[in-house]
């Protein structure tokens, strides 16, 4: 959509601003809408309200390690995944490998984080459509994961736990039992969530056939994560471009199949998240079993990290999709360039292409189904 089309006076069309303080926009996102009655004929997302120029910060810090807390604040509801990705990128630049025990703890943390993030996504998605109860169920469970994180790192949301070369400190002694406990109690809760929301008639009516994203459009936009898989594309970086120890673990990649509507609609994106939580539980169980009981959690990394000259692009599967870090080193302890390729940024950019012609009320469902976090969109 072009600038001029919004300015052309047309007595039938109305321009409406949704956000930046609208409760269902999942953060400070402003959508400039053009409406013909209740039909959306134009969408123009305005972002940048949370822009902190993370990349400039990263370049101004005199140590690669100091960037880690800033990565937490990109996607602030999945901070572990961000740290994990950044640490992997710098480790690749340094050409070091971390101890085996660290790999397992990192994967467990990342998968717990995925569940926590998907619970938030699913809960708020229901909330957008008027289902208040599932939201409370989701948050109760998410809280248990945050407790595990808090015991390990001391923080509930912004952990600063995974660092370059390992972990800040070893997990507490009851970490294994706590996590096992969570896995066994959480599994029946997914069934409860399905009864409450997934098969709910009203919920299906609000999400099936809405905001259909065809697979080729998703690939052309480089959509990733549940947004891409919801369109029936079986693509997951954990399996297709494996990092850490994911190639030693057994898990499935759920994809959208259009069970209640069209492939790639809002319901498909939703169900992919629900099914992924079960897969994450499987991964956690396997990792807990294989994890070495004892071991060092920090690789010997020099106090002042000076990577050799070079550049890397490392991508991982964060809860929202492909999170990439493009880092250029010029041999100094200061990163020359850090670019964060945020999945939400890319996924949000396809919003106009899937929401034209839908009803205004359905646009809320579409935005919710993309599951954006503005901290990551704006960086």
């Amino acid at each position, binding site marked *: 959509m*072009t*600038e001029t089309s919004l300015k052309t006076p047309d007595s039938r069309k109305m321009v409406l601003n949704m956000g930046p303080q609208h409760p269902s926009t999942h953060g400070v996102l402003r959508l400039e809408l053009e409406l013909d009655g209740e039909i959306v004929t134009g969408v123009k997302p305005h*972002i*940048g309200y949370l*822009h902190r*120029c993370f*990349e*400039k910060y990263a*370049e101004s810090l005199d140590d690669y390690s100091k960037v880690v807390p800033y990565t937490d604040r990109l996607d602030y509801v999945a901070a572990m995944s961000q740290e994990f990705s950044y640490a992997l990128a710098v480790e*690749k*630049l340094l*050409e070091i490998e971390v101890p085996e025990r660290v790999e397992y703890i990192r994967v467990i943390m990342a998968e717990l984080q995925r569940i926590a993030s998907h619970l938030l996504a699913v809960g708020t998605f229901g909330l957008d459509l008027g289902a208040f109860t599932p939201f409370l169920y989701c948050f109760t469970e998410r809280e248990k994961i945050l407790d595990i994180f808090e015991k390990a790192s001391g923080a509930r949301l912004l952990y600063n736990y995974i660092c370059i070369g390992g972990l800040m400190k070893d997990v507490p002694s009851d970490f294994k039992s706590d996590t096992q406990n969570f896995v066994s109690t959480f599994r029946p809760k997914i069934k409860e969530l399905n009864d409450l929301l997934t098969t709910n008639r009203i919920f299906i009516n609000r999400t099936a056939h809405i905001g259909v994203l065809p697979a080729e*459009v998703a*690939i*052309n*936009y*480089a959509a990733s994560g549940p947004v891409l898989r919801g369109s029936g*594309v079986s*693509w997951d970086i954990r399996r*297709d*471009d494996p990092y850490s120890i994911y190639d030693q673990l057994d898990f499935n990649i759920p994809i959208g199949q259009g069970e209640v509507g069209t492939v790639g609609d809002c319901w498909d994106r939703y169900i992919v998240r629900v099914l992924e939580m079960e897969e994450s539980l499987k991964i956690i169980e396997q990792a807990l079993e294989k994890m070495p009981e004892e071991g060092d959690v920090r690789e010997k990394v020099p106090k002042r990290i000076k*990577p*050799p*000259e*070079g*550049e*890397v*692009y490392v*991508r991982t599967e964060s809860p929202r999709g*492909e999170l*990439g870090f*493009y880092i*250029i080193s010029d041999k100094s302890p200061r990163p020359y*360039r850090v*670019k964060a*390729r945020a999945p939400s*940024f*890319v996924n949000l*950019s*396809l919003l106009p*292409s899937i929401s034209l012609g839908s009803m205004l009320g359905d646009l809320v469902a579409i935005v919710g189904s993309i599951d954006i976090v503005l901290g990551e969109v*704006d*960086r």
Partner: protein
Amino acid sequence: MTKTEEIFEYLKWRFEDANLVYHPANSGQPWIIISAPFIREISHFLRDDMELRFDSLMCLSGVHYPSEEMLGVTYHIHSTRYGYNLVLKVAVNVNDPLVPSVESIWKTADWHEREAWDMLGIKFEGHPNLTRILCPDDWEGFPLRKDYVQQDTYLGLETK
């Protein structure tokens, strides 16, 4: 021979005028340097060629190289069909930073190019709506340039 080298040989033979240079890497992946005016043509070829099928642009990043007075753009592309990655680079003079837009080839480039314009002032020719995306429309300067000086006030408010 690495995958990038093979693709480089394949492209070199096809695009003789594009001054293709293969650059080996210390860590990470090697890259191919392309003369800026050819980037759209070559991207189009990379996407549509039956043996390559680079159908997705993972990341587009702008970089400032003040010592050479250059602005660079790095393209990380990926083929979902064959499952391999490729890194392309172009560089243009900082005083005349014109790079053809690849928005019509990979839609991801739409917002990424706007971001590179916003942050580094790289002009993407042929982009349908090259406006600032993260900073306000009337912001001064390009924050990610190494010689950037932040403006003192914005809308009458102190910025520092």
